[in-house]
């Protein structure tokens, strides 16, 4: 498979893909993370995170305007030649690879905790690995089209859970309104913008999209959708689980789903959660894994991706086992990826855009002379 220059897909497919990359965290930990940072004001922090993400994205997309049709690696090449392209490719590819490793380990651990307690972790992980390897062979078009079909089902399932839990909400859980304080909401909220770290995939999509307007709109629509799900997810969680009990659940949405009981007939709705969660996880992992390979191979100037799939999968599988236990994975995720992810997604790429603009401006000027 050559680099997929000729493949094009529509706005909806791209929106579904990027939204899933960010919203998967709602199933995993985002709700609890906001409560850990800001207490029962976690939902306010979620609003702040989304607002900052919109602001940072607006700045990025404004800078990107001059580079229609180019992805972040092409822009890095304009800014600093092949060296910067390689640095950018390996940095972004590395981040995506790290995200894939952490997420596959965490998803597998979660599955083991709630559904397959006696199965070995490697056995659980093999199924995810098989999924992402097959997705890698089928290519980006399959991943994108698959996500366009699956995401509406995931969203419907999630909405069912949110509606089902409504009888359990208690509005007084929102008070004291500022939770652990405004400082926590704003300061911790700023670096938790890292929740949107996967937005960098958006700047790898332009070769597959039609125009600058497409990229811009897909970004705004994705962020809006993600904001809706992140904020409602955090808000409903806080309304259902009073603080400090809300600090306890390992998988917030799963724990919420366990509380749903609509009469004697509709019970154990968490089985629906496992279904939508695994579908969402598989798309997330397939996407992140594919774009990690895509970025690295493009940075390295490789013509084909397919020969890299199996070696990358083996490295991913091994890397996922590096953390000693689940708590170590959570520490890496919370203390590193979700704290400094914003620096790569918004600052690093922002600086590349800025540098490329300056270089481009300089070239134009010299051509004009």
């Amino acid at each position, binding site marked *: 498979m050559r680099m997929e220059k000729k493949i094009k897909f529509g706005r909806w497919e791209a929106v579904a893909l990027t939204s899933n990359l960010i919203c998967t965290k709602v199933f995993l930990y985002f709700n609890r993370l906001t409560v850990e940072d800001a207490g029962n004001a976690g939902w306010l922090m979620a609003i702040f995170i989304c607002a900052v993400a919109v602001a940072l994205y607006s700045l990025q997309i404004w800078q990107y305007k001059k580079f229609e049709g180019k992805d972040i690696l092409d822009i890095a090449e304009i800014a600093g030649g092949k060296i910067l392209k390689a640095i950018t490719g390996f940095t972004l590819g590395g981040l995506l690879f790290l995200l894939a490793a952490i997420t596959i380990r965490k998803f597998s651990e979660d599955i083991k905790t709630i559904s397959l307690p006696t*199965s*070995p972790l490697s056995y659980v992980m093999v199924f995810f690995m098989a999924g992402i390897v097959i997705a890698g062979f089928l290519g980006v078009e399959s991943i994108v089209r698959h996500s366009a079909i699956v995401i509406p089902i995931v969203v419907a399932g999630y909405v069912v859970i949110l509606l089902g839990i409504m009888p359990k909400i208690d509005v007084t859980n929102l008070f004291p309104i500022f939770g652990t304080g405004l400082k926590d909401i704003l300061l911790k909220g700023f670096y938790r913008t890292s929740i949107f770290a996967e937005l960098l995939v958006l700047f790898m999509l332009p070769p597959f999209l039609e125009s600058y307007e497409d990229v811009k709109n897909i970004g705004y629509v994705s962020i809006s959708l993600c904001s809706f799900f992140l904020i409602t997810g955090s808000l409903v969680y806080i309304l259902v689980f009073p603080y400090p009990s809300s600090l306890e659940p390992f998988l917030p949405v799963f724990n919420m789903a366990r509380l749903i009981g609509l009469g004697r007939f509709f019970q154990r709705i968490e089985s629906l959660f496992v279904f939508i969660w695994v579908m969402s996880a598989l798309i997330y992992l397939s996407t992140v894994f594919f774009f990690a390979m895509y970025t690295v191979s493009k940075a390295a100037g490789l013509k084909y991706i397919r020969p890299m799939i199996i070696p990358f999968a083996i490295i991913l599988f091994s890397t996922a086992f590096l953390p000693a236990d689940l708590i170590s994975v959570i520490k890496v995720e919370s203390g590193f990826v979700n704290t400094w992810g914003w620096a790569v997604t918004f600052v690093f790429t922002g600086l590349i855009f800025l540098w490329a603009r300056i270089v481009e401006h300089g070239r134009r000027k010299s051509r004009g002379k």
Partner: protein
Amino acid sequence: MKRTGRFTRFGCALLTVITAVILSGCHDMREIDDMAYPLAIGLDIGHANVLRMTLQLAAPLSIGGGGAGESGGGGDTGGGGKPISVITIDTPSIFSGLNMVNNIISKEINMSHAKVVVISRDLAEKGVEKYVQAMTRGREFRPDMFILVSNDPPDEYLKEVSAILESNPAKYYELLLGKEFSSYYPEARMSDFQHALERNDIEPVAVLSGINAKESTDELDEMSQIGKQYLDEGRYEAGDVPMISDLRIVAMGTAVFKNGKMVGTLDGIESVCFEMITGKYRHSYWTIPDVYDKDNVIVMNVVQRKKPKATVEMKDGRPVITVVLDLEGDFTSLQSSVEYEKYPELVENKTSEIIRQNIMSFLRRTTDEFDSDICGFGRYIKGRFLTWDEWEKFDWPSHYKNSEFNVEVNFKIRRTGLIIRQIIS
């Protein structure tokens, strides 16, 4: 091209075979028939070890047969044996106990169908927090399990459970403890109990239950008050209800907790007041003395029309708690010849006053006797604080015992049943 197609076909075939082999029996494959499902778990203070745990196991063959009513006829009770089997064990902890039980029974214990946790009064008074935490962490324990405090040891209590009207004891628990038409005990679920344990704006409660030991009407005759004077039916607690029944388990009243330890009990009518204040009251019959004739009573079906409105203000360092209740009722029985249908205001005022007095008396017990905010009034004053630190410094539990209550009950008679006037000869 041809080669690629062949590879794809071979790959698909290989994948199908591997998937079929792997998924047909994974590590976690467990046959339902290989499991033993406890329906209730009893916890008591142990003697051979720190905890006495009782499991009430379902016997699926007996349950599966179904009763005559449920199976649509037939009258066969399936396996013919008892639908439950009870095992008691002294153990250091809940999960160690499950380990030990697995040494006795042939099937693997699975707690995912447990409906009830029965805690002995002694253990409840000693403290239950560590056991509740263990069950919350356990994957198989459901957060919607009911939580009961029993006056009798759980090993005896669980042996006495006999679901005569249902063949399935799980359904018996669900119908008994989750029903909407009785308010003499609260709906106490494990998740609510656990959250209330961890919060400082509300304290937990559990259903009070016990064995009704009375076997003949002679024992009822020995009880005081018999036949002489009207006594409200809610003035009983589990175990002392004047009743003879094949169903020996009675749920009546509420166990009140503070800081994880049981500090007292509420009787049936106080439990009704608790339900009304917390907005969980649905409907039940209320009996009040006739306005003009002490020998007769008026019975109404009372419904909570709206959620109660509660406000909490601090005045001179004391919390002033105001509660407004909106209730409505239908006449169910009028024993005297007075045409109350024409003048319902008389009954409305009297009922409002009786309910108000009951609620005031109940609330005073929560402050003076229990010092436990089981109604969660702390939740209504939290909004006056901006941050969690400020709220914690305020220390609501230390203020609650000084609370002053204002209760307003708005009660309206809406309907008169199937007759609109009563002709008494």
